[in-house]
């Protein structure tokens, strides 16, 4: 499972973001390998969103270095955007469009050609077993399906890395489990998964986990090693032990 031998696709070195006096992210240094499932944890206000926005090329760092899929976050944001996918907890599908229209739209804005879009749409519908629902409006789909479709759409353009921002918010445990099957499937194909979550059972599913507290990475290792290191039984307790010392208030 651990892919330490694989080449790194996310490399940061003392990546820092300041807003005036406030240091949102302080000298983040870590690497994520190709095909790895990397859990990015932290309490609200710890600086997760800011870090993620820098990695996506949406926010310019104040100092430090970072390369995403080999592209520099300062100068090559357009190339980064082509190499990544993104999914948020809002699912980001258009309710008033059908399943296939949504796929077609997201594939289209990444500049895929019409034949490419057609074959990709067919492939996705088959994988998700949604062939019969191709012409169904997304608003009529059950939540779990929407979530799976949303994930598939976020990797429709076959990115190197996909960023998932609390992708399972408000979804029941069974659906969440099914969703993680999809994530594993994508990781097996070599897609790097960078995921934030508040569910500690999900943290257990990750190859490695980082926990941010007050803008710094307080811990980074595999869930097994972290539990050993802190002498605790589960990730919930590990997280709590680290996060309760936080001085910052959630925003």
């Amino acid at each position, binding site marked *: 499972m651990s892919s330490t031998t694989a080449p790194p696709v996310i490399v940061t070195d003392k990546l820092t973001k300041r807003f005036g006096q406030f240091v949102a992210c302080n000298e983040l240094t870590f690497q994520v390998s190709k095909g790895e499932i990397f859990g990015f944890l932290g309490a609200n206000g710890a600086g997760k969103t800011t870090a993620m926005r820098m990695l*996506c*090329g*949406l*926010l310019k760092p104040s100092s430090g270095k970072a390369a995403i899929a080999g592209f520099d976050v300062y100068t090559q944001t*357009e190339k980064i*955007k*082509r190499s*990544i*996918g*993104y*999914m*948020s*907890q*809002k*699912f*980001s*599908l*258009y*309710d*008033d*469009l059908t399943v296939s*229209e949504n796929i*077609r*739209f*997201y594939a*289209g*804005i*990444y*500049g895929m*050609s019409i034949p490419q879009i057609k074959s990709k749409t067919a492939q996705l519908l088959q994988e998700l077993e949604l062939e019969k629902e191709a012409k169904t409006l997304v608003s009529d789909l059950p939540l779990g399906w929407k979530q799976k479709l949303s994930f598939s759409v*976020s990797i429709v353009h076959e990115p190197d890395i996909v*960023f998932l921002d609390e992708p399972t918010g408000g979804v029941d445990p069974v659906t969440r489990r099914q969703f993680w099957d999809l994530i594993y499937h994508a990781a097996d194909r070599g897609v790097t998964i960078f995921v934030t979550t508040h569910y500690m059972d999900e943290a257990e599913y990750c190859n490695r986990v980082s926990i941010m507290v007050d803008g710094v990475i307080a811990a980074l290792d595999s869930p097994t090693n972290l539990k050993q290191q802190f002498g605790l039984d589960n990730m919930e307790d590990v997280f709590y032990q680290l996060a309760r010392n936080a001085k910052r208030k959630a925003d």
Partner: protein
Amino acid sequence: MRQLITFIRKEFLHVFRDRKTLLMLFGLPIAQIILFGFALSSEIKNSKIAITDYSKDPVTEQLINKIASSNYFDIQHTVQSAEQLQSAFKKGDIRMAIVFPANFSNDLTHTGKATIQVIADASDPNQATTITNYITRLINDFNTQSTLNAGLPLQIVPEMQFLYNPELRGAPNFVPGVMALVLMLVCTMMTSVAIVKEKELGTMEILLVSPFKPIYIIISKLAPNLLISLVNLFIILVLSAVFLDLHVKGSLLLLVFDSTLFILTSLSIGLLLSINARTQQAAMMASLMGMMLPTMLLTGFLFPIENMPLPMQMLSNLVPSRWYFIIVKRVMLKGLGFSAVWKETLILTGMSLLLFTISLRRFKIRLQ
């Protein structure tokens, strides 16, 4: 380019899926035309009037017949005394009274000149002005048409001429107003709501993370609204031609060109509103309160701008619809060409360029 087409296609799908809104968008101009054209007409028909004839001769009889045959007036009484007149006014039975003095016929035959008294109920001053204008015109007509004085006009009355609108119809003034109002409303509201909707849905984040350029997002959002607005413009022009007998006298091309300019200005305002609004409701309210009121009040189609206090007049200069209103009146009603509206066109061009640049820059800043 292909990406842009994908996006524009999606925007059209949104528009056509939402049948209710679509109906409302096209229903709006139709409702406005009906409302202003028929229900809220400033034209006054069948005003109840009384006639007191102390002269009783063939001339007064002719004139009374002429008045009676006009559909502006409905002769209720032929009253004999001043007291009767007064009570009819008080009861509200009549809006206006016409009194022919006893020496009317005598004066007319000897001097070719006579006076009649026109008394109007001025509790509604606008209505009073309008109906006294009608009667003045009617008497003028009578003067010139009458052959009683060997072909010479019977009476010298100040010539009242109503340029461009000889029948004092309401339509010529409100159609340009409705055009300004409808286009402004549709453009600002649709645009701001469409963009805020993406923010609310969370899809805006996805678009930002994608290689899709912000300028493309803006263009795609504006495209369907531009088309809808042009269709609305067409609906208004057809309706006013068919039902209100109001045709475009000037160049249609010039009218469409200036309308497009005005539409672009309104779209930019919508864009600007969307940047600060967080919810669709907020965007809707901002468009309604922020744009509809100034457009209605400061455009000049409901209240003449010349009558406003100076600060308000200055403020009205900032309202794009004010300039558009002037352009439409000149091109559509008076049939004037570009030389008559180049200044207003220039102002609109400046406004749309300025607003579009500001909104584009602010839009980009917000994305960071």
